[in-house]
């Protein structure tokens, strides 16, 4: 069962024991009902799964709900594909995603990656209102890719990240090397090198990605991934 952001609330503040901790009229409920009122979230359900090969490369093996991920790449060198490849596993398991500010999404490439198109909302041209649209969508989706059309201001970034933390969504910011995200992210993917393998056509692209983050994610490293490979998917290099 999908628990959603309500689960966090159940765990911390409204568990049955705490609700009536200081009340003299503690209602007597059947034991099986009480059991359902106990905290139901585990660390795992607060993680969104990552597909191959990211599961093995990212600390914790997934994306923590409420965290902000920054994907940074020089223009045209695989940043968009990388951001989209982070959606695949969650999308396959029924989570909703939205993509804001990607003007002309390559639908075939997105489908080839393994993203379920039926659960992706695109807001291609949010014009000046990209941050507002993103905030609107945060309540409705589990993963949100945002490509700010211009450099995001510090205030906008902070408001958005606070909201993400509160709602338990995962925000994936797609930033170009020239316009970095103004705040430190929980997890960051930096494309440092991109190399195409070719035959009689474009075959596969080898991306060198530096994965880094805060806390347990701090000990990152450089990895080579194939994105996209000959079938349009992502795999370990």
């Amino acid at each position, binding site marked *: 069962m999908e628990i959603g952001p309500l689960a966090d609330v159940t765990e911390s503040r409204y568990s049955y024991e705490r609700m009536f901790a200081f009340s003299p009229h503690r209602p007597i409920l059947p034991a099986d009902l009480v059991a359902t009122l106990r905290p139901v979230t585990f660390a795992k359900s607060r993680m969104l799964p990552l597909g191959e090969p990211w599961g093995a490369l990212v600390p914790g093996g997934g994306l923590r709900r409420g965290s902000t991920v920054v994907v940074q790449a020089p223009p*045209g060198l695989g940043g*968009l594909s990388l951001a989209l490849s982070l959606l695949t596993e969650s999308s396959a398991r029924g989570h909703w995603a*939205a993509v804001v500010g990607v003007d002309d999404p*390559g*639908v075939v490439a997105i489908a*080839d990656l393994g993203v379920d198109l039926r659960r992706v909302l695109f807001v291609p041209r*949010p014009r000046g209102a990209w941050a507002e649209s993103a905030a609107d*969508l945060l309540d409705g989706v589990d993963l949100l890719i945002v490509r700010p059309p211009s450099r995001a201001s510090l205030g906008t970034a902070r408001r958005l990240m606070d909201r993400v933390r509160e709602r338990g969504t995962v925000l994936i910011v797609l930033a170009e090397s020239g316009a970095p995200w103004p705040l430190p992210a929980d997890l960051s993917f930096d494309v440092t090198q991109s190399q195409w393998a070719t035959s009689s*056509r*474009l075959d596969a692209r080898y991306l060198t990605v530096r994965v880094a983050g805060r806390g347990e994610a701090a000990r990152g490293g450089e990895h080579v991934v194939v994105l996209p490979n000959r079938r349009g998917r992502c795999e370990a290099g």
Partner: protein
Amino acid sequence: MERLLAIWVEALCEEAPDGSTLRDYSALLDALTILCPFTEPVRLGLLALPVRGPSRFFGGEEAVLAAVAQTVRDVTGHEPSLGVADGLFCAEVAARRGLVIVPGATEQFRRSLSLKVLGRKDVATTCQRLGLHTVGSFADLEPARVAERFNKHALALHRVARGESPELGGQRDLKLVKRLRQLRGENGVGEEQMGFFGQRGAGDDRAEAAAHRVRRRLGADAVVVASLRGGRVPEDRATLVPWGSPPSGARDSAPWPGQLRAPSPATTLAHPVAVQLRDGGDHQIVMGSRGFLSETPGVLLFSNQMRRDVVWHAGPWPLMERWWSLDRRRAHLQVLLATGEALLLTAESSRWWLVGIYD
């Protein structure tokens, strides 16, 4: 002009108050689409399909006529009147009279018609007073003389009469396609795209509410959803429709020989950007009729004077789809720039266009 088979079903041209006419028409269109995927709804009571392809498949025009007539009888229970001629105007006239005009004789057939079939009484009456009784005699007038005496509508008729235009202005019912789509939406599984997602959970409702909020903020077309349909190249296979619009019927199920294989560009431009492809000596590169490049690509110029060196290319892969009617020739080319970016270009109408970025 394309050789068309027109299907005239007298009983379906008057709309019944219970909507049964449109339903029968829609059912007939579906059935005929199985015989020929390019069957077009023209207006109530009239359909047309290009006869050349099917006649090769069924083994001659006679066989196509028999198959179509049988289909109409089976689906609607009415006897159709069929006609074959070049262009929609002549095909309709032929269908109403049940004639098959042999290839090459359409011109003669059209010229022999009475002026009344053009459907404008004022033009017919005036011409009659001038001693012009047939379409042919009207066609022999100089266009300038027609323009002097009549209005622009008559000039359009004149173009049809001369065989320069395949159909009359009012021949097609432009709203019919939309009405058919609405009809299918009502009869289908779900009216909205959302209904297509199988079981609905709490997540679907939350997403729906979020999409509504963005739509209120940015307008009805701001949120789009994507799906795939059949096609050979990425820009043809992608469908992006505003969220909440009825689902497109087409699904990607048939094999497409010659399909451009993965990887596909992560950015597919809805409006291709014109670019210039030049060789090392700064000469324009053109694609010859046999599908070869005139020179090896060396430089790519974007419209804003941005210049990039091309280090590698693959293709071109020519694509000729429905060459008998659309006359659309395209060729796709993959290029790798010195900066490391990979792009998908197409050559069409002797120009180069940027259609995709392997971002």
